[in-house]
């Protein structure tokens, strides 16, 4: 009620004014009737009523909300005061904007990564099924074969989300068996190699799209409604059902225009006919934030897709208890908690998985069921980005701390010049609390302005970060936006920091002796008091300059210096890591290499003519003007990760050995030097002697001191390690080349021709050495491929250098961002140093003038001020260097090629900081030395 009255105050007041006028008019009438003269009538009327303004005031008062009015008044006064010193205000707002903006940007990513729920109904009741095995997966276990990802839980075993299909059926029959069912829906999905990139042809146009195999009740379990048509239903997911597909909203818009026209269309997926039956809603992206499938197909269609593929799905895979490939999610019944579901199912799963073990060793290492909350989807993205984001979060928090202490310092210095004003206010009756409230209003206003500007900066920052985190790739799965949640955090941060950095100066500047402060002619008297004991200017100690002895100001500056050093060290570590990684010896020439993927099998080619097709295509590509060399391989060397049993005849296989199937002239194209013998050539093909080229390391391990040429190496059958799959003669030894990720050591590698038997070629990566920019040849390449076979689309077009950058993008991100943050931190700290020193020099102008008049040299003045700066920095370093040494092991896992306590990084950081600080202090120092003694004394 009172709030309503509060807002109607003015109206009521106007009415009251009329009312009082009317009252006076009546009284005057009465008085006139009593016979008074008009003037007397008026006078008596007013006397009787009293002061109408006072009456209105009284009524106005009853409708007051005191604190609201006071706050508004404080706010307007604060705004006026800040506007009077525009320089200070702009600097402070900018500093706060940088701090709050950076924090908001990073937080919005953390928010989207950790907190954003799946765009389905009631995501909180979803659970993801995982299992955890205590030992590593190298020994004998029930997981005989796996397709999918497993995660190493920092040495404590492994976790994965893939299960055998019979296990899925076990979970699915939950409700049917007993009444205490915990899941209302159990559904499955799969993102294996077959569907990760599929050849999709629509009206003759071929392209590569990403897909997802889903169980019949996937969409039902997620409770998603179609945007058009219908979604996949259980009846679609069985052997022999008609092949249907559901496309994503974005895919539909790209290929079919409006969503409505997609349903009913016929498309070719890997040369098989599918009918599109519906479109998913625009915001739906599946259950994994890391991947956005464009096409969803029923799980059992993988049998159709697998025909003709050496490693394709067979009906037996659906019955195999030991082949782990299907991923499962479930929805909890209302009222059932995750813990209850875990307790109910863990023993049942344990029981089931024990029956799949065939020996004691397997029984000892059974995987245990682990249910995880599924509201935010799979944690692929979280695993990848959590650590770097937390590191960044810490860094921006440090920046904010620096920014806050900086502004606090500026406020302190400024407060010193407002002493008289504050003393006056307190002497006419404002309580200390009231003045503090006023000062805090100023600082909160400052912080809020900074926050508002910071949010604007954050918009730009988020865009930039999205690019950085995404590694320049097309998919925007790692993205963030400014939702209310994030804005709320920014607002809270502004107010909190405003109070934080305003408190100390507010408390400081209201604590002093009122009377003496008012009596001061200027602030020179206070200076006189504490400078009286210091005659020699040459040795200026800390206690001579500053608001008080070892004041808040000094502590803040020291803190800023310390934090800046930590950030410089972090930046140095990451920059060096990146530089180390970028200069890792590759063993091949990475310049001017064009890479792209091609899958002829998906568009219908079969053995044995598929090898001819690949060979002819290679010839055509080599003939493109500007292409110096052309070859192909099953994947690029950096992406390689292939283990098949290869060893010397009669010897056991080594888990270290890797292999890669390549085409002719591979070594030449990659510019890997041949140390002995020859490269794989066009004359090695199906029907000729089986050959292989081995790497230097392989030769050294297996043929120490001997000539490997002419010796044999065997590729064993996977199913039976005694049966020979390929028996190859070694025809060449190549120099070691990097295989797999850049951080691992060089492994022994065997290079086999792709067309001489098992494994039959599937998807291949073509490698072209070009003269000039590789990407300028893409169109010619596409044309050649189209002419060779119009059903095939190329994908993953990239340069070798680009691919390496993609692999390094986390390191690039950390290095770039940390450097930027470190520069930011140092800049802010130096601005703070500069500001504080300037104020100090300005305050002590009179004193410096006197000293110079008494004979102090200019040089001595400069040295003294710089010495002051140096002492502050030194103390800051003394604190932060041990801290840096102590905490750097936390980022050990993000570094490469160096120890965390890298002396070079530390030294450079210290040098940069010292240099910047002295530079910041130099200008005030020079200004101090230029003080004209006479002017200073007159100014006194």
């Amino acid at each position, binding site marked *: 009620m009172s709030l309503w009255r509060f807002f109607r105050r003015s109206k009521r007041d106007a009415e009251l004014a009329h009312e009082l006028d009317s009252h006076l008019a009546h009284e005057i009438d009465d008085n006139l009737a009593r016979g008074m003269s008009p003037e007397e009538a008026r006078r008596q009327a007013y006397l009787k009523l009293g002061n109408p303004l006072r009456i209105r005031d009284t*009524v106005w008062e009853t409708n007051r909300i005191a604190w609201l009015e006071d706050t508004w008044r404080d706010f307007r006064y604060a705004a006026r005061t800040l506007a009077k010193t525009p320089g200070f205000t702009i600097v402070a707002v900018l500093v706060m904007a940088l701090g709050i903006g950076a924090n908001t940007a990073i937080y919005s990513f953390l928010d989207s990564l950790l907190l954003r729920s799946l765009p389905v109904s009631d995501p909180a009741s979803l659970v993801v099924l995982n299992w955890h095995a205590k030992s590593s997966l190298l020994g004998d276990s029930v997981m005989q074969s796996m397709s999918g990802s497993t995660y190493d839980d920092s040495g404590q075993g492994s976790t994965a989300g893939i299960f055998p299909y019979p296990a899925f059926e076990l979970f699915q029959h939950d409700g049917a068996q007993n009444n205490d069912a915990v899941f209302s829906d159990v559904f499955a999905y799969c993102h294996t190699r077959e569907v990760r990139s599929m050849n999709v042809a629509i009206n003759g146009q071929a392209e590569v799209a990403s897909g997802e195999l889903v169980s019949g009740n996937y969409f039902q379990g997620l409770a998603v409604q179609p945007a058009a048509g219908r979604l996949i239903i259980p009846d679609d997911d069985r052997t022999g059902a008609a092949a249907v597909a559901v496309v994503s909203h974005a895919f539909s818009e790209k290929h079919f225009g409006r969503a409505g026209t997609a349903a009913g269309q016929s498309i070719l997926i890997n040369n098989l006919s599918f009918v599109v039956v519906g479109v998913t809603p625009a915001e739906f992206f599946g259950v994994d934030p890391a991947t956005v499938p464009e096409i969803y197909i029923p799980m059992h269609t993988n049998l159709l897709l697998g025909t003709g593929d050496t490693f394709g799905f067979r009906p037996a895979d659906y019955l195999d208890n030991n082949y782990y490939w299907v991923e499962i999610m479930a929805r909890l019944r209302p009222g059932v908690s995750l813990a209850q579901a875990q307790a109910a199912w863990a023993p049942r799963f344990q029981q089931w998985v024990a029956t799949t073990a065939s020996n004691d060793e397997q029984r000892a290492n059974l995987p245990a069921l682990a249910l995880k909350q599924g509201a935010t989807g799979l944690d692929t993205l979280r695993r990848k980005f959590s650590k770097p984001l937390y590191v960044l979060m810490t860094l921006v928090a440090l920046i904010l701390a620096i920014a806050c202490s900086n502004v606090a310092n500026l406020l302190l210095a400024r407060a010193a010049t407002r002493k008289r004003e504050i003393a006056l206010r307190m002497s006419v009756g404002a309580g200390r609390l009231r003045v503090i409230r006023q000062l805090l209003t100023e600082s909160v206003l400052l912080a809020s302005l900074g926050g508002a500007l910071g949010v604007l900066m954050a918009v730009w920052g988020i865009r930039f970060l999205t690019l950085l985190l995404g590694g320049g790739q097309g998919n925007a799965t790692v993205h963030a936006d400014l939702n209310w949640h994030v804005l709320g955090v920014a607002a809270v941060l502004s107010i909190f920091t405003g109070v934080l950095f305003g408190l100390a100066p507010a408390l400081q500047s209201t604590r002093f002796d009122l009377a003496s402060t008012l009596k001061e002619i200027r602030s020179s008297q206070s200076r006189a008091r504490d400078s009286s004991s210091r005659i020699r200017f040459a040795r200026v100690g800390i206690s001579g300059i500053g608001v008080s002895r070892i004041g808040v100001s000094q502590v803040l500056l020291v803190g800023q210096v310390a934090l800046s050093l930590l950030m410089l060290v972090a930046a140095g570590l990451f920059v060096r890591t990146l530089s180390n990684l970028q200069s890792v010896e590759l063993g091949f020439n990475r310049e001017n290499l064009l890479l792209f993927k091609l899958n002829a099998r998906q568009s219908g080619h079969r053995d044995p003519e598929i090898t001819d097709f690949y060979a002819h295509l290679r010839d055509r590509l080599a003939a493109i003007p500007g292409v110096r060399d052309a070859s192909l391989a099953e994947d690029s060397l950096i992406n390689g990760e292939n283990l098949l049993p290869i060893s010397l005849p009669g010897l056991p296989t080594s888990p270290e050995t890797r292999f890669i199937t390549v085409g002719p002239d591979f070594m030449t194209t990659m510019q890997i030097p041949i140390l002995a013998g020859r490269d794989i050539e066009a004359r090695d093909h199906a029907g000729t002697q089986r050959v292989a080229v081995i790497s230097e390391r392989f030769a050294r391990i297996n043929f120490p001191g001997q000539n490997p040429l002419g010796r044999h190496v065997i590729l064993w059958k996977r199913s039976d390690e005694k049966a020979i799959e390929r028996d190859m003669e070694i025809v060449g030894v190549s120099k070691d080349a990097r295989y797999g990720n850049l951080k691992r050591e060089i492994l022994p590698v065997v290079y086999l021709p792709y067309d001489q038997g098992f494994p039959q070629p599937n998807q291949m990566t073509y490698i072209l050495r070009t003269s000039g920019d590789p990407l300028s040849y893409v169109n010619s390449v596409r044309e050649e491929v189209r002419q060779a076979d119009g059903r095939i689309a190329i994908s993953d077009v990239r340069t070798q250098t680009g691919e390496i950058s993609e692999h390094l993008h986390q390191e690039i991100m950390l290095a770039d961002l940390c450097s930027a943050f470190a520069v930011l931190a140092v800049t802010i700290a130096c601005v703070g140093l500069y500001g504080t020193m300037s104020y100090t020099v300005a305050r002590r102008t009179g004193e410096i003038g006197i000293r110079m008049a008494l004979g102090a040299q200019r040089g001595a003045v400069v040295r003294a001020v710089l010495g002051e700066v140096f002492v502050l920095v030194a103390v800051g370093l003394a604190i932060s260097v041990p801290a840096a040494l102590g905490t750097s092991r936390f980022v050990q896992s993000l570094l490469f090629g160096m120890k965390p306590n890298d002396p070079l990084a530390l030294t450079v950081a210290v040098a940069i900081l010292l240099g910047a600080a002295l530079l910041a202090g130099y200008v005030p120092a020079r200004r101090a030395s230029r003080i004209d003694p006479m002017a200073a004394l007159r100014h006194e």
Partner: protein
Amino acid sequence: MADNRQANGEMVQGTLDMLILRTLITGPAHGHTIAHVIEHTSENVLEVEQGSLYPALHRLEDRGWVNSYWGASENNRKARYYKLTAAGKKQLTAETNRWRQVVAAIGRVLGETAE
């Protein structure tokens, strides 16, 4: 005069409210009339301090015991009229009873000491 005012003129806030409500029971009136009525009816013993009349009227309106509207007065001037509400009537009865109780109690005390 001064003595009278001292003894009787200071009116407790609640008392003024009660008197205003009582005045309005005969019908709506505007501020000026209310003041005069109270004075006349009390035979000028109670002098309404007109300065506290209007805040009192506003208070009564905020509490919902009176309603107000603009109207024309006897002198054909625009005036703000106040009218008793049902709640106000109830409040008046309650307050009058309480006042009578207080007066009786004071009377008993005075009566006793007089003896």
